Structure formats: structure tokens, C-alpha cells
């Protein structure tokens, strides 16, 4: 009888869950009719389940905690994600380099020259050698970075606002060349424009417009542009000092502005457009009718580069008359 009880007892948990097959259920019920001990076991297990269902307290956290958590998660993702190609390359190269060094270390120590060149025995000279080598490579880069005042640098704690403007027209050869105005709204403490210039796609850099200290609008009406860049360097020490940059235009225009976290110089050095970082983006559109300068400013959104073309589709279609889809790969 005991061995039968042992066999049935193993099924009791499933029995009370109702997950046994019909045959097993019948076997259990048949046994329960004649075994008081197993019957008690079933009753006790049911009571235990009842206690769990009715009196177990699930842990909950406050909304304030979740808000803080979301913020911290966002920051961590920003800091940790090596999304750019060169970042991935460096990550792989570092791992590979470290692996090769470890192998070399073992080989040298195991070889005949082990006593003379052993890294373990002569760690200090190796350390000095490594440090010197690193400084020889890193120091010039740092110097270049620090001295790049025109574009500002990360090291100096500057931030950038750069609006890349691309003009799209329903007409492939627009008769009216667009003009643009850059509006900088001083709504962020510590974000003060110090320099502004335009770099037209021809490669020519025009003189910066005269900045009226009493105004926050810079007009570019002197020269038509089909494609170009407007850079402004802003003093600021944290990522919150992102300026609102808006463009008011005369023709069909699609533009965005974003803040690269890397220095502009470094971005150029690595062959990337400073505007192709996955950073803040602001979508701006003009009104449909000539003469009406309806400005649509969309909330700055954090978007991925690939997400950009998709964000475009979120824009209400009635405000768009773009003849081509903005291809993020072209950026």
C-alpha cells in the first residue's frame, strides 16, 4: 500500500492543478477513495494553494521608482551602446589585441628567451614601454582635439548644434531657390551661441551673417542654397543644453538639426558626417503655399539613424510635398 501511496503522492500536485490525463486522474481518484492519508494530503495541498492565492503579497514599486529607473536605463543605454562602426571596430580590435598579447606573453615565457624577455619577470619595463607607446599615439590626437576651437571639442565641454539643410522640391529644377533663416531659441540655460557659419555643399564657406545681439534670428537671404550646413557652437556642459533650432524657409524644405556627442573634428577624422550620429533630431517643415511661412516644429525626438526615414512617415502627410523619400543611408 505504501508504494502505491508513494506513486500516487507524486501525482497529487498535478491532480489538484487538473493537469493529469484522464486515466491518471481516474487512478488517483480510485486510490483516494480508499486512502485517508493521501486524501488528507490533497486537502492540505488545496488549502496551501488557497493561502497562496489569497494571502501572498506581490512586491510592487512606486511610480517614482519606475520613473527614476527608466531615466537611468536610458542614460546607461546612451553611454554603453557602441553603435557606430568605428566603435564596434575598436571594441573587436581591443579584444583581439588583448588575446594576442596574452598568447605572446605565454609563448615568450615558455620559450628559451623566457628568462630574458619574460613579461612576468620584467613587468615594470614592459609597463613603461607600453605607457610610452600609448602616449606617443594618444597625445597628438588629444592635442589636435583640444586645439580645434572652430568646431569646438568635447574636451573643452562645448556642445554643437548643427543643422544640415537639404532642400527637396516637387520640381526637379526648382525655379525659386530657397532661402533660410536659422532661429535659435534661448530656452536652455547655458546655451549661448558663440559662432555661426554656413558651409554650402560647394565646399565654400561664406562669411557668417551679422549677429544681432538683440535677436535670436539669423537670416540667410544673401545667397540661395540647395544644400548646406549651418553650424553653431554653443557653450554648455551637459546634454540638456540642446538648443531649439528651427528653420523658416521659402521653399519646400526638409531639415533637421541634431547634436553630435562626439567632437565635430573627431567625427570628420573618422570619416563621418557630424550629423549622422544617432542623436537629437528635430523635424521641421515649411508650409505648403509660397508666401506663407508656416513653420511646423516637431518635438525633438531621440531617434536612431535608421529610424529617421521612418519618423518622416509619422509627419502628417498634408504638410508634406516631398518628391522623394529621405534616404537615411545618404546621410
Amino acid at each position: 500500500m505504501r508504494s502505491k501511496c508513494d506513486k500516487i503522492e507524486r501525482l497529487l500536485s498535478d491532480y489538484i492543478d487538473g493537469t493529469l490525463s484522464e486515466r491518471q486522474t481516474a487512478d488517483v481518484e480510485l486510490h483516494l477513495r480508499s486512502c485517508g492519508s493521501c486524501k488528507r494530503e490533497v486537502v492540505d495541498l488545496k488549502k496551501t494553494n488557497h493561502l497562496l492565492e489569497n494571502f501572498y503579497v506581490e512586491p510592487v514599486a512606486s511610480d517614482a521608482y519606475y520613473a527614476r529607473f527608466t531615466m537611468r536605463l536610458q542614460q546607461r543605454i546612451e553611454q554603453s551602446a557602441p553603435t557606430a562602426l568605428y566603435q564596434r571596430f575598436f571594441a573587436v580590435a581591443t579584444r583581439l589585441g588583448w588575446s594576442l598579447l596574452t598568447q605572446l606573453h605565454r609563448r615568450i615565457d615558455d620559450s628559451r628567451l623566457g628568462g630574458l624577455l619574460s613579461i612576468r619577470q620584467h613587468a615594470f619595463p614592459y609597463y613603461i614601454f607600453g605607457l610610452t607607446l600609448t602616449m606617443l599615439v594618444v597625445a597628438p590626437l588629444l592635442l589636435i582635439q583640444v586645439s580645434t576651437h572652430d568646431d569646438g571639442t568635447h574636451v573643452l565641454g562645448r556642445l554643437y548644434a548643427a543643422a544640415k539643410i537639404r532642400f527637396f522640391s516637387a520640381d526637379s529644377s526648382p525655379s525659386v531657390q530657397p532661402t533660410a533663416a536659422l532661429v535659435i531659441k534661448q530656452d536652455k540655460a547655458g546655451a549661448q551661441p558663440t559662432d555661426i557659419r554656413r558651409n554650402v555643399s560647394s565646399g565654400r564657406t561664406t562669411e557668417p551673417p551679422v549677429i544681432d545681439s538683440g535677436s535670436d534670428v539669423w537670416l540667410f537671404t544673401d545667397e540661395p542654397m540647395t544644400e548646406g550646413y549651418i553650424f553653431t557652437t554653443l557653450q554648455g556642459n551637459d546634454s540638456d543644453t540642446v538648443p531649439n533650432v528651427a528653420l523658416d524657409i521659402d521653399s519646400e524644405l526638409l531639415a533637421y538639426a541634431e547634436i553630435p556627442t562626439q567632437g565635430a573634428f573627431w567625427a570628420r577624422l573618422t570619416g563621418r558626417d557630424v550629423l549622422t550620429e544617432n542623436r537629437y533630431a528635430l523635424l521641421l517643415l515649411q508650409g505648403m503655399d509660397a508666401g506663407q511661412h508656416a513653420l511646423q516644429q516637431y518635438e525633438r525626438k531621440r531617434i536612431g539613424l535608421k529610424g529617421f526615414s521612418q519618423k518622416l512617415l509619422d509627419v502628417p502627410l498634408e504638410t508634406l510635398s516631398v518628391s522623394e523619400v529621405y534616404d537615411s543611408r545618404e546621410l
Partner: protein
Amino acid sequence: MEKTEALLIADLCEGDETALAPLVEKYKRMVYRLAMQITKNHADADDVMQEVFIKVYRSIRTFRKGAAFETWLYRIAVNEALNFVKRRKRQRESALEAASEAEYEAITRYRAQIANDPHVHAEKAELRHHVTEAVNNLPPKHRTVVILHEFEALTHAEIASILNCSEGTVRSRLHYARKKLRTMLKSYVDASDV
């Protein structure tokens, strides 16, 4: 218009990190609850939560299209929490003693729910405390199965998939966990008239 979960996952795969926020919003409570139940400690649960969503963000490309995202997330969360418990050498006595009250109001609420609920009779508050503590005192693997089955209402097959073990193992763990709970709660079980 609110995007569907499948669209958000597709966006995340494409590198659109904004798609993560709605997923975090939807599942943060579930992940926190699981992490807290397995680690029994708010600070650890917080770390587990971070790791879980970072893993989701980084590994979303490995997520099989058409599979259940929730099950995938459960798997990450449970394994991360169990690994955390394993890594933690010094087990703390209880969640209530371990947390810094000033920093973590969550645990304070947890305690308040158990003990200070004005609508609940003192006896019931005590019963809640004991039942909750009994579950907390189960070994992590048994506790996990109980939590997933009793409170998250997952099937044996789903739990087996999450824990990467056989259904038989799940049944066996559940059975022994229930027996242990019955022993720990004996006085209440005997007094219960259900």
C-alpha cells in the same frame, strides 16, 4: 497611433532605440516583480531590471520572429535573477532587513502592504506576512517555479522553456515546493476550513 508590440520589436531590431521605451513601460512591473521575488532584495532587483532591459536592447536581433516576446522576456528575467542570486555570495536574511529605506520606497510599500493595510484585520495582516515569508524562504529554484506557476499563471511547458529544463523537473519542483510550503504554513493549513 500606438504601435503594436511586433512593430516595436521590428523597430528595435532596426536600431531605433526609441522603440525600447514603450516595451519597458509595458513590462517593467512584471520584470520588477519577478526580480524582487527571486532576489528578495530591492537593490538586487533594481540591478537585475537594468541588466534585463539592457539585454533585451542588445540581443533583440536574436529574438525569433513570431515567438512570444513575453516568454522570451520571462526567460531573460528569471535567468538573470537566478544568476544574480547565485553570484551573490552572502545571502541576506530577508528583503525587509536588507534594503535602505531612505532610498527604496518600494520595499517600504511592500512592507506596508503586508503589515499596515488599514483595511485588513491584524490577523490577516499577520497571515499575509507569513504566507509571503514562506514563499520567500523556499530555495530559489523552487521559489521560481512557484512564482511562475501560481502567480504568473504559466503552464508547465512554458516554465520548462523559460528554465531550460524538462516538464518533469518543473512538476517535481512544484510538488516539493508545495509540500515545503504546506509544512511551513502548517498551523494555518490546519486551521483553514477551505
